[in-house]
């Protein structure tokens, strides 16, 4: 048995993701279909506002500050306070649930889609984790595996979502509220920013822990069908607790690669400059290629988590060397020695 480095796990996960491109394709399709709900309302509204407006020609290349302000003011039912909420998420004060009733129209639909995305995410993860363990799989496998594990995975996802919500409230919002007076009395803005950074780091670490525990539970749930559900659940948590550094390393690798992708995107900015840089169709294709690449990396992360939890390469993986020679056949068909069962468990999962 060998302990692989986190980066190695992540890279192996990326390789696995590349070997099963239909996983990224399926995630991309799910996201595209979700976003498609908004295409028509957004498109219709924009065409209505811009097509015949003389300001439209100015807006081909660059956004206009005045246009956005005017749209929000003249059409409050289009977005409601969506922009305010999105910006609020990035402030030291954060966003409170009491602000949600201010959402309207496309803004409210976008948030509702977010909840639907979470549900579909649960389904997709069941499919992804299941498919990753199949030597030969296809899009059909993803659907089958996803549906098989949907109830359990939905529960895990909702539990993780609730935990993340609680973390946001109690680690970020409430600490901000409690420290408000003290922060205002600090002798420099730098210290105040440091306090915000500490709150943010605490929140991010907690969210990372929640995510890693949830992903470990999912991975173990798929890898250990031989265990009763409650054991699988706790085995998942134990796996996360047993290898926190390696799992965290995989997550950090994933975060770095994703952030790098966004930085490259923002640096290249294919949508800037109007038609002088990219015509509409190449622009859309570029955007979707970017999303697709990002989803490759995402699948790679989940495969990396599986790798990180596996002490030895999983025998199901086609690219892995064959397992050790088979033990002697059982004395009677259908009967397996206890030692063999244990051996397979140890191979597939590094239980403590």
């Amino acid at each position, binding site marked *: 048995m060998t302990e692989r480095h986190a980066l190695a796990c992540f890279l192996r996960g990326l390789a696995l993701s590349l070997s099963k491109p239909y996983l990224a394709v399926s995630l991309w399709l799910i996201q595209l279909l979700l976003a498609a709900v908004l295409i028509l309302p957004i498109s219709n509204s924009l065409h209505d506002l811009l097509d015949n407006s003389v300001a439209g020609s100015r807006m081909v290349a660059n956004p206009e500050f005045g246009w956005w302000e005017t749209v929000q003011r003249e059409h409050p039912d289009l977005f409601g306070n969506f922009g305010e909420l999105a910006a609020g998420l990035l402030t030291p004060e954060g966003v409170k649930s009491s602000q949600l009733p201010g959402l309207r129209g496309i803004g409210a639909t976008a948030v509702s889609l977010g909840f639907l995305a979470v549900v579909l995410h649960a389904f997709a993860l069941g499919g992804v984790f299941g498919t990753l363990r199949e030597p030969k799989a296809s899009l059909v496998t993803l659907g089958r595996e996803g549906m098989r594990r949907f109830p359990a995975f939905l529960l895990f996802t909702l539990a993780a979502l609730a935990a993340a919500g609680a973390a946001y409230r109690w680690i970020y919002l409430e600490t901000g509220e409690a420290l408000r007076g003290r922060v205002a009395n600090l002798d420099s803005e730098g210290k105040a920013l440091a306090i915000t950074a500490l709150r943010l780091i605490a929140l991010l670490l907690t*969210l990372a822990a929640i995510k890693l525990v949830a992903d470990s539970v999912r991975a173990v749930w798929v890898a250990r069908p031989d265990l009763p559900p409650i054991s699988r659940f706790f085995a998942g948590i134990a796996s996360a607790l047993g290898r926190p550094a390696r799992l965290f390393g995989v997550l950090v690798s994933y975060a770095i690669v994703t952030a790098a992708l966004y930085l490259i995107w923002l640096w290249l900015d294919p949508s800037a400059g109007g038609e002088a840089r990219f015509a509409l169709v190449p622009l859309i294709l570029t955007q979707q290629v970017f999303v697709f690449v990002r989803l490759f990396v995402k699948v790679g992360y989940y495969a990396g988590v599986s790798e990180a939890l596996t002490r030895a390469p999983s025998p199901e993986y086609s690219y892995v060397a064959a397992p050790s020679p088979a033990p002697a056949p059982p004395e009677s068909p259908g009967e397996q020695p206890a030692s063999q069962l244990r051996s397979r468990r140890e191979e597939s999962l590094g239980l403590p």
Partner: protein
Amino acid sequence: MPSAKACAIALAGLALPASGLAQSSPLTPPIASYDISCRLDTGKKAIEGTELLTWTNGTARPADTLQFHLYLNAFRNTRSTLWKESRGEGREGGRIPESWGSVELLRMTLQDNTDLLPTLSYISPDDGNPDDRTVAEVRLPRPVAPGETISVAIDFRSRLPRVALRTGYKGDFYLVAQWFPKLGVFQEPGWNCHQFHATSEFFSDFGNYDVSIDVPAFYKGKVGATGRQVEERLSSDRIVYRFRQASVHDFAWTADPAYLVVRDKFHEAGLRDVDLILLLQPEHSGQRERTLRAARAGISGYGRILGAYPYDTLTIVDPPWGARAAGGMEYPTLIAAGTSISAPAAVLSPEGVTVHEFGHQFFYGLLASNEFEEPYLDEGFNTYMTDRVLAATYGVNHEYLSIFGLRFPLGIDVHYPVDANRRYFAVASRDIHATKSWKFRDRRTYGAASYAHTALALATLERLLTTNVMDRALRLYADRWRFRHPTLGDFIATVNDTAGRDWTWYFNRTFFSSDDVDYAVEEVTSTPSKAPKGLFEKEGKLVEGLPPELAKTRGYDSVVTVTRRGGTALPVEILLRFEGGKTHRTLWDGEARWTRFTVSQGPRLLEAIVDPDEKILLDSDRFNNGRRAEGDARAAARWTSRTVFWVQNLLDFLTVAW
């Protein structure tokens, strides 16, 4: 009680005429001059002081009372008018901390030692609030005759609140403003002395100030104030600074041991030299040049149009973190600006506030309008001028995204003056624009009407009059009313005199009204002309069929409908642009709710634009000002793709975290 030393200084002051202590050459005859000695008690966050007020009745009527502003009493308790109106909300939106302030009168005597305190009463001329203590009145033993000068000696004790609204302390930082008993303005109708409101500023008479400030020695070199420092006296653990300034109507001072003191000089041919003193927080030291450049741009930009800044010094205060509510304020020759660690160069953060607060040296300082009753005369006029100076100096500002307190500029231009004043449009019709400051519906409409609406109304006027005429009007207004108390009527008269036409109608519609302005092109069609059908006369008979001269049709039939959606009618130009480059301009008086233009058998109409030169900056929706006959889907298609792309990313982010 005031210290013996302070009393001695006050007594010495009683023996000297106030003008003798002040700047050698007052720029205007003093009405209310102050000789003050004060001592800061950092433990109690309090100031004990003595004040010698020398007041001349400049009106034609006798005065049998004196009325004083006691602004710090607004922070006395939650029953003050300030607390009631603000509902406990500070300038930056947060709660006002329960840190109380007050000013107590310990002695008030005339030069013949007549004690005035027994006649003191608190009055509430604005709202009748019996618990408000921000205006005090004393009865004089005999009326002060027109032209007569009296002296009043006052001992007072001021307790400072933690900074929440302009004045107070935070740690060792002090911005001491509205801190001493200050006389109201005596006018022909009587005293004009308003209470301290949540949305009002100040109004006082010009005079000469001579102020000695006694602070602990650790403030050595870290004290700034209105006027020029003329003396520094160090004892064992205390240090006394003395400042003098003639021909101003208020005095504020600041102290902070953390200040980084930067001195510079403004020099430009045709304008007066000015000593610049920048009191900067150390963590903002990287913004020193930006702030100084903005100050220089302000002195130059305002001076070129309104006449030179007449004082020798300008002190710029940078309040520390946690005391930003002291920033964005103006006092004679001293302004409180303010900035942040995160101030990217593309975002004109220290620049905007520095230019604006300097601009108040004109609109408030020299043109000392009544900020209570006509807040637009200082804030709005100054915002208009700020926008002009910023646009001329920096071009455009930029929108930014604030991420956990750090600002990141976005590639979105914010143009002066329209984009910078968009907050007006959101509340355009909620109040009559020319409203007394404390009678606005709320702080938001006060700000929108006083600052943004006035700036846009003046920018519109500039475009209607031409910049040259507007500049001449502003200069004449500044020359006529320098060191006086102008009103909007005075400005209107100045505009009329300069333009040679009566523009009162414009002010009636834009200031004394709550209506907004919005013109829109509702309809633009251009279709190939068709031959007429029906019965036509031929040789005296009605027959079916076209006469030959009508049978040949060519060109396009075009229809344009322009509507006035807003309540305010202003004359506007309408531009029709045809295929082949031909254009047609026409002026519409804008009085009716709509007008229609039809063109038969003309060239194909491409678009119609109302107000094509963008003169009517008060127009709340400029994006309906133009319409194309044929749609162009490019912008909408691109923005749809961009929006959907980011929605995809956002949805993915939502699913990554759990």
